[in-house]
């Protein structure tokens, strides 16, 4: 197991490296520089600024200097927020995005697994069709449509819930979390239905039933473990999607998380901020993919032996 984790971590290094390199040269290839938007910049001021941020150096020197800083965990100063480092800004936005993502994931798992398992117990009946049709609507309804619609209904017409902010008014975390989690709830529902259907037709389930185990025990003790492997495998990519999707939700609900910083940084040509966010998000995504693979392996004994065997 340890070997598996280590080899996966080693494989992650080229991925992160490619991300850093591609992003670094991409932002610098872009037309427009970080100080172009400033109204009046004297040539000497601009030169001084460029010297301060090392923009006057040849490109490859900038690149190596950046890598050197990065190796020490230093993401550099922000171009747009003078006096603040990218590290600081990221760590101010991270808890918000992480909390939003966590709630969304919890909503997705709670609703998704319940609906999926429920549907799988009586396939091709109304108990199956209704939740699965709802799931399809969830998949087809993009967050940038669902969000405004929820705001319109619950915030403006019914006036039940606040329509923006994060942690300022009680209840203002509900709508963003639902908006972000809805599509994932739908995917989880479909995955857990398919996984459960496959497991429920296995011999060992028949054995469990033949032993006279009550149906809920069969489901809870024997079927769920295997039936939810696809869901666990989906969690890594889902978390990646949640981070990316949080751009929209954070924009709609005016939440000061990572996503909003990222979009603003890209518009502002804030080189260090773009790079820092990209590196940070990519590392998180790689990490979560790894964790979900490990969890899936732990749930599936056949996969586990493959891994501890060290083979491919």
């Amino acid at each position, binding site marked *: 197991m340890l070997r598996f984790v280590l080899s996966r971590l080693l494989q992650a290094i080229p991925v992160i490296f490619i991300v850093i390199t*591609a*992003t670094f040269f991409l932002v610098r290839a872009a037309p427009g520089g970080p100080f172009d938007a400033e109204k009046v910049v004297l040539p000497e001021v601009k030169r001084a600024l460029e010297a301060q941020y090392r923009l006057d150096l040849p490109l490859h020197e900038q690149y190596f200097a950046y890598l050197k800083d990065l190796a020490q965990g230093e993401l550099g100063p922000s171009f747009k927020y003078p006096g603040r480092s990218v590290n600081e800004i990221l760590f101010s936005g991270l808890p918000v995005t992480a909390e939003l993502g966590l709630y969304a994931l919890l909503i997705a798992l709670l609703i998704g697994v319940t609906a999926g398992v429920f549907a799988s117990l009586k396939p091709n009946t109304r108990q199956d069709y209704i939740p699965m049709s709802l799931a399809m609507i969830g998949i087809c309804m993009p967050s940038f449509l669902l969000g405004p619609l929820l705001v319109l209904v619950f915030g403006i017409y019914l006036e039940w819930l606040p329509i923006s902010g994060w942690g300022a008014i009680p209840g203002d975390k509900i709508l963003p979390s639902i908006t972000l989690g809805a599509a994932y709830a739908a995917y989880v529902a479909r995955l857990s239905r398919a996984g459960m259907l496959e497991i429920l037709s296995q011999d060992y389930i028949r054995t469990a039933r033949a032993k006279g185990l009550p149906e809920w025990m069969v489901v809870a003790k024997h079927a769920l473990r295997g039936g939810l492997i696809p869901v666990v495998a989906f969690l890594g990519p889902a978390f990646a999607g949640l981070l*990316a999707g949080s751009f929209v939700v954070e924009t709609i609900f005016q939440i000061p998380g990572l996503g909003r910083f990222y979009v603003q940084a*890209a518009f502002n040509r804030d080189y260090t901020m773009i790079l820092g*966010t990209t590196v940070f998000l990519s590392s998180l995504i790689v990490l979560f993919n790894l964790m979900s693979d490990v969890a899936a392996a732990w749930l599936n004994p056949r996969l586990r032996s493959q891994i501890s065997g060290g083979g491919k």
Partner: protein
Amino acid sequence: MSSPVSADNQGLLDEAEQGSSLWQDAWIRLRKNRMAVAGGITLLVFMVLAILTPWIAPYGYETQDLDLGASAPSAAHWLGTDVFGRDVLTQIMYGGRVSLAVGFIATAVALLIGVTWGAVAGYVGGRVDAVMMRMVDILYALPFMIFIVLLMVVFGRNVLLLFLAIGAVEWLTMARIMRSQVQSLRQQEFVEAAISLGLSPTAIIRKHVVPNALGPIIVYTTLTIPSVMLLEAFLSFLGLGIQPPQTSWGLLISYGAETMEEYPWLLIFPGLALTTTLFSLNFLGDGLRDALDVRGSKD
């Protein structure tokens, strides 16, 4: 091995091919799936409308009526008008042309790259396969959404680039599916039989591998189109996709969301158009998956 197939054997092969009515079976199964049929018909209607839009749109694309301003749905404007007095139905029809075009063209790009990549990796095998699939793995781990946002900001809102960027993201799964198909097909008895009958590799690929790998590819293509359309809409919503004077459903939804308090129809109708299309595509894709899944037809 590579000796030409005798006339007798060729005749046998042709007969066997006609006997295998995989596509006919699939068609019959698909027709029984009411949701899939409804999805397919809806899509056809939308596509015909999109093609005919310049001739059948109720108003001109740039026709404004500033005196009228934003008005609720009425007999003259079935879906209402926006703040410039532009007809919403007309806007949605023109937007649909762009959204559908992005969906189909970007998917075609993904299909082309993915199928070629996967087929080569799967057929050549060995070290070439290992290197090619390693590259796919690495690309998989890249946070593409972030890259697309970056690309669009960096190189401006170029529609062509949008197609390419989206296509470049979506081909990975296609390549994996194609590779595993080709790999498993190469080991099937009927391919071995074809080899022992002396068919050339090109004939085997053309007659046996491609038709059999086509099912999953078609299914996945149908399911890629909605995710591509969603991506375009997402980018347009962020202000990074389609730019005015052109429009797309994502852009219309983005504008609609800004003024939804006063003019909710500006959000609801474009949203309905997008959701209906995605719904139809997903149901059609699911239906095709069930219809073409030969293993599934046994039980």
